């Protein structure tokens, strides 16, 4: 299959908000585990939101990495909600630099891989360490597109911050733009299509 797409043209484009706003709806996947039955398979209405920015900076030697555990476990980044009625929509913005991120969920299990069994992120491989890497240019501070949805009792999401070769040390600056949402179960109106939130494991097919 080969496709050569013509230049797309748009007319009457309606701007779409980047984050969830009050009165928006979400539909949480049925694939969430039992521990998250407070949201599993449910339609939820966003009651109110506020946005909080939290910068995290690590100076890392080249060829090394730091695992950021976003959960509220002791000594971790504490970026999870502590209340079942809260959900965090987290935009992850990356300042420029010679580094990249590899997301894991749960620890040790990369979210992205290819079909061939060897095509999985591998730290001690000169080539496979880049598989699925999210570079600063992919989710820049001016327009972050890398997003996570974090729920109470979700297993820890790990962001591996890798300082790439060639700069001796890198100051890896990550800005978490957290849209803190108060949510409640309800039935969406017939004319509304809720935003579907898959479980992270669903991305690992």
């Amino acid at each position: 299959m080969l496709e050569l797409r013509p230049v797309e043209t748009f007319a009457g484009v309606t701007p779409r908000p980047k984050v969830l706003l009050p009165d928006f709806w979400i539909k949480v996947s049925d694939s969430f585990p039992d521990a998250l039955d407070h949201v599993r398979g449910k339609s939820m209405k966003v009651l109110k939101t506020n946005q909080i920015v939290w910068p995290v900076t690590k100076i890392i030697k080249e060829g090394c990495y730091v695992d950021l555990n976003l959960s509220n476990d002791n000594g971790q980044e504490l970026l999870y909600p502590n209340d079942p009625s809260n959900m965090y929509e987290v935009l992850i913005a990356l300042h420029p630099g010679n580094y990249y991120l590899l997301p894991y969920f749960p620890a040790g299990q990369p979210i992205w891989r290819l079909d061939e069994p060897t095509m999985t992120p591998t730290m001690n491989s000169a080539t496979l360490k880049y598989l699925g890497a999210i570079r600063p240019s992919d989710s820049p501070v001016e327009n972050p597109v890398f997003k996570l949805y974090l729920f109470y009792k979700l297993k820890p999401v790990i962001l591996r911050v890798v300082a790439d070769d060639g700069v001796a040390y890198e100051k890896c600056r990550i800005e978490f733009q957290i849209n803190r949402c108060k949510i409640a179960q309800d039935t969406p109106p017939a004319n509304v299509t809720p935003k579907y939130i898959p479980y992270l494991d669903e991305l690992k097919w």
Partner: protein
Amino acid sequence: MPSARQTANTSGLVLVNPHKHKIVALEGLKVNNQSNNDILLKFVDQYTSDASKTMAADAVQAAEALGTGHPLSGKVRLEMSVPTGEFQSLGKDDVGGIRFLGGCAVIADAQTSDCVVVAQYRLE
């Protein structure tokens, strides 16, 4: 654009303090050496790295202090020699690519208040 002034000092003097989440980007440099000697200046980056793991062997890479205990152990980002009686001015074209992950300190090979260093910089 902020600027900072120091004089030549063999122990090193801090020009710019480190910012937790920003990088110091040098924009310009002016050195007026009215002392009786040529002066060699080193501009060092001062920071402490975070503990990490190596990709090659998954071994622990301990945190390292570079120049935070003493400027002389910092990572040298720029070195320049200024002859006696000279005023040197470097613009953005000359120093624009030089960045400091932590703070910036200047170390001289002779100590004199007759050699003045002014750095123009941006926090990005």
